[in-house]
């Protein structure tokens, strides 16, 4: 939101002051990037979604609404719903696990803070695919966890963990947790201690201080984290295919399939456009919430 304000101001400067072109020059690389890699592909996607295809799956640019009418078939809606559900569960778990972690990091001494933050980022040093494959060898029936449980006689038979909804959610939480911790950490770090002390002085217990002071003050961090986890988690297909086994397809898998095996790029594009609209709605809702919170503080 702050970026958008700055952009507006830059635009106004262009009209009233001569120095405006410098702002545009500075913005230039970003605008070029956005135009080439965001705007243009999005336009292409929208164009494709209204097109038809030929025998070999090539896009034929003649207008049709069929791709969109097909999207509202109950099958695809139920798959949409399924993906949203996985993403919601993953986001909630990320908040529950990530908030305490971020709080602890934000309240730690500066030296420890640096170490803890590095620890949060270390997984990014390895490709997420390799980390996902590692989970497969940990969770499979003859994998690490099961062999340990079996050889120590804790379990009589191996647990079936791979290729279940549990594995999907675990994969999502594992991969996206840092995206929750980091924004919450930034809000916690900015937290004014004197406000918490004031709450205590006015007679609030730790629980009350947490729920009426700390949580509202760190809400922007939670909202940003939720957005950063929820949005990519809906569309993720690599983790859900590898860890879920494909028996409960997610919307990301379905879209990927349209572009490859089903020879139906226009339909995949239509599903993609709907997914983008869904993200836009999420963004507006969460954006408005944090903005009104900002104003009230």
């Amino acid at each position: 939101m702050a970026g958008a304000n700055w952009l507006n101001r830059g635009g106004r400067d262009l009209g009233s002051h001569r120095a405006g072109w410098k702002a545009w020059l500075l913005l230039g690389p970003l605008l070029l990037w956005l135009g080439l890699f965001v705007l243009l592909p999005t336009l292409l996607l929208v164009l494709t979604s209204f097109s038809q295809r030929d025998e070999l799956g090539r896009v034929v640019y003649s207008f049709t609404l069929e791709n969109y009418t097909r999207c509202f078939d109950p099958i695809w809606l139920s798959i949409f719903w399924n993906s949203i559900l996985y993403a919601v569960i993953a986001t909630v778990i990320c908040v529950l696990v990530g908030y305490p972690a971020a709080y602890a990091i934000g309240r730690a001494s500066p030296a420890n803070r640096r170490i803890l933050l590095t620890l949060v980022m270390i997984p990014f040093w390895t490709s997420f695919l390799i980390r996902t494959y590692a989970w497969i060898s940990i969770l499979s029936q003859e994998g690490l966890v099961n062999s340990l449980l079996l050889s120590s006689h804790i379990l009589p038979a191996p647990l079936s963990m791979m290729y279940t909804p549990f594995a999907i959610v675990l994969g999502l939480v594992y991969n996206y947790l840092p995206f929750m911790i980091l924004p919450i950490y930034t809000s916690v770090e900015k937290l004014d201690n004197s406000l918490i002390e004031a709450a205590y002085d006015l007679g609030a217990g730790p629980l009350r201080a947490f729920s009426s002071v700390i949580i509202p003050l760190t809400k922007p961090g939670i909202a940003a984290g939720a957005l950063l986890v929820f949005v990519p988690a809906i569309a993720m297909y690599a983790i859900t295919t590898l860890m879920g086994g494909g028996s409960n397809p997610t919307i990301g898998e379905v879209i990927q399939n349209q572009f490859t095996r089903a020879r139906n790029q226009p339909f995949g594009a239509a599903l993609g456009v709907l997914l983008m609209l869904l993200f836009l709605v999420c963004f507006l809702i969460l954006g408005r919430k944090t903005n009104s919170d900002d104003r009230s503080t």
Partner: protein
Amino acid sequence: MKIPALRHLILTILPIALVACGGATKSAPTANAPGSVEDKKVSLFCWSEYIPQSIIDDFSKETGINVSVENYSSNEEMLSKLLAGGGKYDLIQPSEYTVEALVKDGQLLPLSPAALSNLSNIAPEFRSMSFDPGNKFSVPFMAGFVGICVNTDKVKTPIQGFRDIFTPEHKGRIVIVDDAREIVSWAFGESKIEINDITTENLAKIKPLLKKWLPFVKVYDSDSPKTSLKNGDVDLGVVWSGEAARLYDENKKFTFLLPQEGAHLFVDNMAIPKNATHPQNAHLFINYLLRAEISKRISDAFPYYNPNAAARKLLSPEQLANPASYPPAQDITRMQTFRDIGQQSAAVDELVTQIKAGGK
């Protein structure tokens, strides 16, 4: 799925680039390239896990031609990239029904028989197959089947066909290839419908059967269906024969059989796109892969059914005894192959996705 292919791509391109840097200087022009003016380059677009890197390296060493490789994991993925990519690729590996579609659309360059002296190594029954009479546009690379792989340590009941696999007691113990056309063809076999007769009525007819079968499946995996079998997460599979053959090589408890409802043969071929920029080098590469000892090395690494009769003579008795590579007592050439079904592939995909998602 694209991701493992990408990983594979990175792993293959790096060594090639290294070889190319070292190998470019000691190039020796080969005799059978007619009036060669092409750059010493050839760009392959092939299935992941199908051509061993050492063979590509040796080809570069011998000819001085710099080989770049890109991988795909389904015919349709290859089609969409090929049709979008202009003259980027010099050699592709379409399966039989894709050859048919590409020929129909005029997308392939006619092969020049003079440059393919080793074509005679291909067994007669694999020459001039129905999808490309006279091998005008394609040469068989490897063939195979989709069949049943059973972990006999875990499954004690006799398994003979799809109806023995898709049963309530095997619920959550099955892996199958994630390929809608394949899955539908099994139900066609069970319902005694011709596998290429894909019509709206026939799809409606087999829908109840798939709705009964697919809920028993735990994993859909086309890239590496052997992984979940090997890790013990599932005990039964309907998988590519080459994958089952590798499992059998690792552990004899994994048996393979062709389903009694009927199996079909798939043939992956080598072909040159019409816009290829290095067609002569592509011919050289095809002819190289057709050599008996080279084709044998491909079989060593990826034990599919080798249509190269001269290479098959070089295989060990153990390799020939692998039931997944060379299934017994079946007249392989009388097996059916897939034909191109054009836009129906969307209907097939929708049907399977719908049932996977538990819809009506």
